[in-house]
């Protein structure tokens, strides 16, 4: 690709690049991250406005059991997955049952920001009766390492904002500085310091961002 048409440039990504990267990310996730359900690509087809190839990635109904017993070192999240299709009624598969545990459900959307030219993570938590969880409750579900990261970092902070397409309040991880650390990642990961190939853009991005919300990706995805 010539310099004028670069899909990934300076840590940023174009809309077309995002669509490609999203598909590649979802594919790799499906192949390597079997403890989770797959991400879905939700196209932005409004019945009145046909937008070609625009959409966002969605991962929903991830159950996080907030255990009251915490290990001394790193907290590991007991994460189970709800495999049911969105349209069907929820059929829970719970690995660990503890009378004091409360099931919190999480939805994650990876949405493209045309302004900042980077992806953004939107998420929300709710209890089994559908009631939304407050940020304080959500923070308790996050690994303690990421909570301190959130508090100290100027790059990662969470705000409550309206979902760009769904007209509902969600939480958003701020994109400020994304292109800077993506650049750092690409410089350190490749021998000639070239740009991240578009297929790996979202994988690299999520390897950092996912950790903030407690979602780790297996190393196989980074190849």
């Amino acid at each position, binding site marked *: 690709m010539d310099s004028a048409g670069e899909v990934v440039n300076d840590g940023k990504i174009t809309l077309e690049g995002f669509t490609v990267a999203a598909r590649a990310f979802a594919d790799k996730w499906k192949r390597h991250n079997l403890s989770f359900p797959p991400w879905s690509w939700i196209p932005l087809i409004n019945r*009145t*406005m*046909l937008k070609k190839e625009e959409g966002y990635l969605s991962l929903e109904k991830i159950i996080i059991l907030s255990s009251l017993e915490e290990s001394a070192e790193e907290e590991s999240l007991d994460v189970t997955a709800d495999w049911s299709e969105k349209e069907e009624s929820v059929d829970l598969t719970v690995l660990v049952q503890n009378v004091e545990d409360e099931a919190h459900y999480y939805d994650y959307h990876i949405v493209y920001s*045309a*302004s900042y030219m980077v992806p953004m993570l939107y998420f929300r938590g709710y209890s089994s009766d559908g009631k*939304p969880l407050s940020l304080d409750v959500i923070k308790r579900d996050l690994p303690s390492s990421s909570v301190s990261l959130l508090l100290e970092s100027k790059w990662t902070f969470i705000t409550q904002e*309206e979902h*760009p397409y769904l*007209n509902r*309040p969600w939480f958003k991880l701020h994109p400020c500085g994304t292109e800077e650390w993506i650049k750092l990642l690409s410089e350190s990961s490749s021998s000639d310091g070239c740009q991240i190939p578009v297929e790996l853009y979202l994988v690299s991005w999520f390897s950092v961002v996912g950790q903030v919300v407690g979602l780790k990706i297996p190393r196989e995805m980074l190849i």
Partner: protein
Amino acid sequence: MAANEEAMKYVWEGAIPLQIHLHKSEVASHPAPPPALVLAPRIGYLPLLVPLIKPYFKDSLPPGEDSIWFDYKGVPLKWYIPTGVLFDLLCAESERPWNLTVTFLSLYLSFISFFCLRDTELGYTNLSFPFYLLLFLRVLETFYLQIHFRGYPSNVLIPCEGEDSAKWNFVNSLKEAAYIINGNCKNVMNMSQSDQEDLWTSVMNGDLDAYTRLLPKLKMGNIEDEFSRKESLSSPVSRQGGGTEIDVAGQVKTARIPVRLYVRSVSQNFENLEDVPEIDTWDEISYMNRPVEFLKEKGKCFTLRDAMESLLPEYSGDRAQTSGEEEADGSQETRGEIKLVRIQGIELKLEIPFSWVVNNLMNPEFYLHISVLVIGPQR
């Protein structure tokens, strides 16, 4: 320049008369309080009006804590959208006086003439006819809202803590606009805290003079106006030979303009704007927060139509003919059509140069808010 200042004055002085009723479920006094009448700046936000409105209703409220929100005909209003945009988007169609004037005027005249003829022998004259007409027109321009002090719909609206939320939203939008125009938010981040405060205060108070004084401190990049740019005869010739302007660094000049687009779609064509049905939920409005990008090409003018085409490719240009094309199976498909483009309350002709529109009609946070009414594709 003088023309630009005039336009900014127009934008900053634009105001919408609001008639605000306390929602009947919250009226705890008898009789119910009369509505509050407030003139709202177009570039302002609803939460900023609360101190003006609350005194009207404070004696009528049930006990408890306030969590204030507004609705228009049952639709909860997004408090972070400028008031003028809300009006242009939600109700201006049915309540714009200009379209109804002719119809009503003729009705009114016949009504009056009937009474005048009847009462001629009593010497009755109707001096107040022009007054009532004006009052009628005024009534039609009003934005009728309901205010709530309880029961905040937090499942659909993000929380609002009054002025602080409005300020946070403004600064965030400003940063985003700066990122789009300059490629980074440094100019906003580098502004001193007190300058940022003053900038916000100038917007809150509608103080254009103060805002204009603070603008140089903001160092927002220039959005070139084709009319103001001095054409230099010695500008570098395009290496690509396509008439594309290239600056000294050899970079193709692409401008990115912050735009927020609000699209209302109706399924059927209509003759009069007042036939457009009201919306029931925000889901009927497509919101696009997406910059318009255009190459600055010599000799070519990037118009508002070009901008709309880039944002809504399915609706604009020659491809959007309402006399459809035959599909393979013989069914006719008509593409959509843009019926109305409204910015700062003005219905604009699409031939206007886009840079003029941006420079003269953008909001103080450097965003251009465009309300669009389209007719969806027919099948």
